[in-house]
């Protein structure tokens, strides 16, 4: 673990992601303004509000402070991305372990379902799910889980098939260990290194997806501060007032970059061993 922190890639990534996590936790104290309160519509970065407050990143169409909205907006994106990726992993790992270890018909059926889901363009899939169930945080998590679980399933299944053929699994089977113990003690821990890299990358994808859903109006219902939603609202005026879209875009990009850097560092660390 200590060796990991010496990698500059991981350190920079962790710094960015850590900063966003801190921002999300400390939002009530960090945010200079109420993110929902109308101050000076379309104020430029560094402009002033009605009571002489400095609006560091300007204000949006409805006069809400962009900096405060970004700070509060970190909460839903981090929470939902983590929840969605976690759920996708719970589903993908469970089914992947079973399919890879049991094989036969179980594997055929689970793999078929996964392939069917994977054959849809992801974004279309999200839209279908959210349009049919309505836009809400729970449904965003559901949609992203549904969209990423099959990919997780495929990775876990492949790793499981490989590990299940090793002699230490044969030894446990010959000893009469129950299958669930073999899965949890022999296979999962040895599959974990391959999965941590994917988990970080998938977290980045989920953050981007949640941004994209917000942009399409399928994320959090307004007026909640939502990075994707902010880009969408500012889009029409983006040429005249680039700050409306620039800062939320930077927020999404920096979070995704931070997570990808961590994933890269983990991967490099695995390769070097």
């Amino acid at each position, binding site marked *: 673990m200590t060796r990991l922190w010496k990698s500059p890639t991981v350190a920079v990534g962790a710094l960015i992601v850590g900063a966003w996590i801190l921002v999300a936790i400390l939002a009530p104290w960090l945010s200079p303004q109420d993110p929902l309160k109308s101050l000076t519509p379309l104020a430029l970065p560094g402009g002033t509000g009605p009571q002489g407050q400095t609006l560091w990143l300007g204000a949006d169409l409805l006069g809400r402070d962009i900096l405060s909205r970004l700070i509060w907006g970190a909460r839903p994106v981090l929470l939902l991305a983590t929840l969605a990726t976690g759920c996708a992993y719970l589903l993908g790992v469970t089914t992947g372990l079973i399919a890879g270890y049991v094989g036969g018909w179980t594997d055929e059926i689970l793999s078929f379902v996964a392939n069917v889901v994977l054959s849809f363009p992801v974004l279309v899939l999200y839209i279908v799910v959210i349009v049919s169930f309505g836009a809400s945080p729970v449904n965003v998590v559901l949609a992203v889980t549904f969209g990423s679980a099959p990919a997780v399933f495929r990775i876990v299944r492949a790793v499981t098939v490989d590990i299940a053929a090793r*002699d230490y699994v044969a030894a446990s089977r010959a000893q009469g260990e129950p299958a669930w113990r073999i899965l949890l003690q022999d296979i999962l*821990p040895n599959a974990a290194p391959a999965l941590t890299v994917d988990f970080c990358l998938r977290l980045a994808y989920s953050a981007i997806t949640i941004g994209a859903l917000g942009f399409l109006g399928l994320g959090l219902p307004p007026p909640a501060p939502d990075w994707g939603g902010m880009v969408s609202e500012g889009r029409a005026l983006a040429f005249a007032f680039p700050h409306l879209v620039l800062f939320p875009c930077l927020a999404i990009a920096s979070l995704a970059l931070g997570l990808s850097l961590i994933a890269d560092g983990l991967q490099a660390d695995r390769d070097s061993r």
Partner: protein
Amino acid sequence: MTALDAPVLTVRGLSLALPKGADRPFAVEDVSFEVRRGEILCLVGESGSGKTALSHAIMGALPAGLKRSAGEIRLGDRSLTDLSAKDLRRLRGDRMAMIPQEPIAALNPSIRVGRQIEEVLELHTRMTPAARRERCLSLLAAMKIADPERVAGSWPHQLSGGQCQRAVIAMALAVHPDLLIADEPTTALDVTTQAQILTLFGDLRARGDHGILMVTHDFGVVAEVADRVAVMRHGQIVEIGPVDDILKRPTHPYSRQLIDCLPRATPEPRPAPAGDAVLSLQKVCKSYGQRQILKDIDLTLQRGSTLSIVGESGSGKSTLARLLVRLTACNAGQALMEGEDLFDLRGAALQRMRGRVQMVFQDPYGALNPRRTVGEIIGRAARLTGLDAKGAKARTLELLGLVGLPAEAYDRRPAAFSGGQRQRIGIARALATNPEILIADESVSALDVSIQAQILELLQSLQTRFGLSILFITHDLRVAGQISDTIAVLKDGEVVESGPPQAVLHSPVHPYTRALIQASPGGLA
């Protein structure tokens, strides 16, 4: 001294430094020797002795972390140690060539074999394509490949291990190198194939065109082909001399120890196993699809005795082991243990049987979960017998003592142990359920000879102590001869001969058994 007598390879005072923090300062320390044209010098040593590092240093391909700190390597009259990378590259292949251990891994799987040989000629000669083609075929023919045309047109995966190794040797010989370095060239091959390849090396030596440096761990191979032997230990050559001197009158204690560790070919007479049959196989068959792996196997294991099953790869011996511990299902036949058919058990009865029949695996590196401590690995098995956590710990510590490992092993992970120690852990795990039958599937074949001898000794002492019945699966007739009460020879899924070791080894009836005995490197007698 004429040019002909001049050594092809001279190594003088060579030392290769290991990076700081390694278990010793030098991988190779102050090593000097020569190889002459028309001779085979065998470099013998156990794993970690530095023999591979040395051969790589001569090829100019030192693994990362190693540095030459002193000494000189000369190929003919040229010093290799101060050549530029480019000159060295030209010399490699031109005047020296290497034959690696895994022939299949040495060939590019997506290029036809003939093309790969021609590529060497293309790089190092100015032959026309037609001449290259012809030379390639004549090389393959010289390697005693029956139909060079077909082999040249084949992909590597279509060839057997022996054919691949011949093709690799042909490739190495393509441009008449002065020096051939063969790194364990027959270790990955079956005995009969090994014998053929060793004959090929004998022919090469007789032609007198090349000097051959052969790295090996097997004194059988040494006895078969070497002119001179250098014994390596901890990076130093402890003894070097003509093969007869070293094999018959070793002066260094380590050489003597290595030679003493060789499995005795002549089995000591043992009393015929007197116990009742603990396991009897009747007409056991197994097939995968159309391919029949085992055909009507009938065998009996007497209580407290050792039955060895000897066969080459593909003979079905590992399949038999996996059938008996119920890792795969059998198609037909019975395995009777006290009147119960092992293949027929389910549920609780199967669980009880699993405790009574245990297996020790071949690869000490793959058979232990790298993420668990030794205590967890053995403790899990112990808990399956119904012990609680405390009882399992006590039992695990007892087992560790039994297989000769210190109690400190309990909290370490497998990576902290050597191959032999890991095999002891595997044995302790198998013993945790108090089995009556122990199946050892090539359990010593991945180990150095001295370690192999220790593990065999351990198995035998455990056998006498607990009255274990052992089913010992091996490709090595010498090992089988040393430890078994009965030997069964398996070929293409059929038992072609079985009986007490003296009968099987000294008066074999089946031609295949005779061929196996003949092919055993160093001879069995």
